[in-house]
């Protein structure tokens, strides 16, 4: 056997070995029915399932999990949620939606020839008197005659139309606030390219504030809660809900706090409460840190002030804050009592439902 034939033989052998090794086995969907089915008693036998015995040992296996087990896991997770009161939601750095609830999500709009454009905005809901700042960004396409249009989304009324200049491939429009802007708006960019007219659009909201957070009063200890009295100047009476994020002085997210109250017009106070559970949690974390200068110093930020929709015929309105964050000063959680939150009767009923599903009864 000459050298070439020998090499060929080795190659053929290797190919055969590789083919055998990589030969596909049955996919998981073709496995015979699983064993140990806890749910089997509740269902009729399967007369359609083929009773096939695999000719080779499978390289994939099925591990059965019953619906009851799935409900059991959800019930356990839900029970954990009931360990904290309604008005507190623990926060971590991973809670991006709660940390930035007003973020605008940019989306690419594909155009012919692999090009695309996208509309960017600093936020979804703008609040008077701030201007609406939006940008059109183009990829792999030259644009000309770029215009921005602002329209009332519900009526279609044109509110603004103006030309936009390019700067480093980005077309930025800054539209000064107008009093009639209130509610959902359409941002539309019109442009020309390749001899064709094109428009792209997205939705934002503009809000004329109906209430303004003006100050935060001194912290109060009340049973297991650190109470934060928030002062609000109310222009339109109604049922208000305030959400704000509680941070440590170092900016570490601690909890989202929620408070609700009926507020009349004028200067009013709405209380937020932070339960000892979340304060203690962070105190323990920070006490482990060596460079901890202000263990019990807090910040309140990311305000979401809503005058809730009183009926299906009246939309939610929004408020604002004179400043983006307030320092709350020092507060020692040790002065709070250790009582555990009591879940509401409705929440306990919800837990019972999940547990009932888990038990299969």
């Amino acid at each position, binding site marked *: 056997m000459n050298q070439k034939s020998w090499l060929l033989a080795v190659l053929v052998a290797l190919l055969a070995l590789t083919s055998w090794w990589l030969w596909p086995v049955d996919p*998981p969907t073709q496995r015979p*029915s*699983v064993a140990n*089915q*806890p*749910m*089997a008693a509740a*269902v*009729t036998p*399967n007369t359609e*399932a083929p009773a096939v015995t695999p000719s*080779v*040992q499978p*390289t994939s*296996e*099925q*591990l059965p*999990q*019953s619906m*009851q087990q*799935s*409900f059991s*896991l*959800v019930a356990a*997770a*839900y029970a954990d949620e009931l360990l904290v009161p*309604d008005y507190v939601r623990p926060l971590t750095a991973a*809670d*991006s*939606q*709660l940390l930035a609830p007003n973020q*605008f*999500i940019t*989306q690419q*709009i*594909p155009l*012919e020839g692999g090009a695309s454009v996208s509309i960017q905005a600093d936020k*979804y*809901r703008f609040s008077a008197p701030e201007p609406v700042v939006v940008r059109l960004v183009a990829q792999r396409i030259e644009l000309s005659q770029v215009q921005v249009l602002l329209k009332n989304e*519900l009526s279609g009324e044109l509110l603004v139309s103006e030309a936009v200049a390019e700067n480093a491939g980005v077309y930025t429009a800054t539209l000064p606030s107008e009093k009639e802007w209130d509610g*959902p708006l359409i941002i539309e960019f019109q442009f020309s390219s390749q001899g*064709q*007219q*094109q*428009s792209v659009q*997205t*939705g934002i909201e503009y809000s004329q504030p109906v209430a303004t957070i003006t100050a935060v009063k001194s912290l109060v200890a009340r049973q297991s809660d650190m109470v934060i009295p928030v002062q609000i100047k109310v222009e339109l009476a109604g049922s208000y*809900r305030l959400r704000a994020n509680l941070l440590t002085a170092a900016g570490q997210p601690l909890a989202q706090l*929620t408070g609700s109250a009926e507020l009349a017009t004028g200067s009013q106070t709405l209380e937020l409460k932070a339960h000892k559970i979340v304060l203690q949690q962070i105190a323990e974390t920070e006490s482990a840190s060596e460079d901890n200068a202000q263990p019990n110093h807090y910040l309140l930020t990311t305000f979401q002030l809503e005058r*809730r*929709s009183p*009926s*299906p015929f009246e*939309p939610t309105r929004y408020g604002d804050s004179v400043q983006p964050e307030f320092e709350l000063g020092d507060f020692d959680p040790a002065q709070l009592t250790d009582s555990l939150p009591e879940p509401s009767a409705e929440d306990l*009923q*919800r837990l019972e*439902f*999940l547990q*009932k*599903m888990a038990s299969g009864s």
Partner: protein
Amino acid sequence: MKMTAMLLAAAFCSLNVSAAVGGYPVVLIHGLQPDNLKSKPNAAQVKVNGQAYWQEYWASRADLRIDWPSQERIRGKIASDYIWPQLKKLSADGTCARGCIFVNHSTGDLITRYIIDNQALWLKNAGLTPLNIVATFDFSGAGGGSELADLAVNVATGGGLIDAALKFAVSLWLGETPSAANVGVLHDLRVNTARQLAPQPQSKIPRLRFVGGASDYLGATSPFLPGDDDGVVAPHSSCGASQAASFESCSASVDLDGKLASQSAGVRNFMPYHYPMLMSDSYSHNATIGQARKGLVTAARSQVNYLDQRSLSFNTYQENRGWWVFSNKYQVVTGSDRFSMTDLVFRAAN
């Protein structure tokens, strides 16, 4: 004609009074009905369409439906003319006095969230008793919006430069290329708008999520949806993820097809009280509420703690090959070899 008359009669007659999930009455809220955008049905036709939407499985298992027309906006006529009368009826009849379950599909998830956030105050202000909603079953939930809706609005109002593949995908989804005059609820389904609509109800109602990963459109819509989509919505929406991003699974340790493996693109943070329960890459957006079994279903939460990566390296001895090989393990929900996803849920609850 005969079929229309039968559907009309079925739509207006009272629903099954003995319907229940876990002993609780069931309220249905359907999803987007694309043909509404052009046909613009009146109130009577909306009821007929609602009955037809759920006919295959849930219609006979529910106590009440909240039907709505897709050519309208959620915070507009959908709320005032369609949701509100049914909320008042539910309260006045006491249907939810001891608790009830809301079962929804697709955009019905978004509408359910809007109801959860507002119903108590609306009913209280009207002198009525708020509803006691015990849980919701969210099939193919669109509560996080759909990128397809953003793109469809741009196809409808845009111009000649829009990508042809996108136009084709949107026309497959909606049945035709939409025009600026018939966008309706698609505005509410845009990702930004959807995620800002009643984003965080305070009520702790558990939202149980049932998620598909197949496509009814031969994958034509998938390039425009991030992650392992179901043809209409991305997992960030159907799983109830807190962030609109690209995800391949609702779990950090179970793939959409049930394979037990660390999921780098699995959802780790969810909207408050959102719990993914079942997933399957065999079920498309619409198949999750159907009678027909499409394939195996997996559980988004695993009984075994697979966070320990060593336990994912399963070894299996293969006698015919004479050595140890790595073996993939798949978590399979018992009964999913016989029953459809929706049937599994109903059977487990009854």
